[in-house]
């Protein structure tokens, strides 16, 4: 085992945690925004472009 194993493990651990946080940020962000849009549409709110299409 290398005398610098701790540094190598720490570097890969910090990278893994940061990348997982980024993936979760994007995945959970998508879910949250889609939920917001679904709730707004359920309340009858339409986007301006969508409202024009149905008129």
């Amino acid at each position, binding site marked *: 085992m290398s005398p610098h194993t701790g540094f190598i493990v720490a570097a890969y651990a910090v*990278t893994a945690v940061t990348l997982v946080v980024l993936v979760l940020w994007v995945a959970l962000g998508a879910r949250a925004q889609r939920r917001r849009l679904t709730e707004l549409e359920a309340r009858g709110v339409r986007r301006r472009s969508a409202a024009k299409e149905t008129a």
Partner: protein
Amino acid sequence: MPLIDYANPTRFLAFSARVLPWLAAATAVLLLVGLWLSFFGSPPDYQQGETVRIMYIHVPSAWLSMLCYGVMAVAAVGTLVWRHPLADVTARAAAPLGAAFTFLALVTGSLWGKPMWGTWWVWDARLTSELVLLIMYLGLIALWQAVDDFGRAARVVAVLTLVGSINIPIIKFSVDWWNTLHQGESIFRAGGPTIDWSMLTALFTMMAAMTLLYAALLIGAIGNEILKRRADQMEMMAAGERG
């Protein structure tokens, strides 16, 4: 369909839904191969020993920290010249990713520097310009949060992004222009790489894997920003109808 047609928010969302699963799968495969090469398929360095394995995540992070700023600079031109709706969305989605990869470049570099140089940090040109890049990312993110008006925030951030882009060649060429503790260019240089191919294979595989991951994250984050702006607009319309 011409590429420019995807620069429409609705078409972009359809495009990202089709592309993201494939991109995620390709990233996962390449990352697994890259990690195997980094730990088992490449030898220890004759000087650095096993510590060279930090390079396989440090170099891709540093590369992505600059690529991400390049994407933001192109988007800034799109905002200022064409006022394209996707340009500011792209820049805003890219900024947190750029900050994260810059943070990783600094931390992994520091974790390599302590055993190799005997210090966590030195104020040499490469390290300092990379730290300036992190501060710039955080400043741009803060500016977007501080200005309520989307259009005004987009223009101010675009101007500052273009001014800040002067830092990218400074980071890239700092090791040539100044006498730095950070080693000189060893991969993309005129005389060819100075690193042996047994290590370059692992390095290039990890660079490709992390670049694919970055592309997937950027496409996903742009989609989220489009949906967020739609929801914000609908909430404002609803508030206007009530008022």
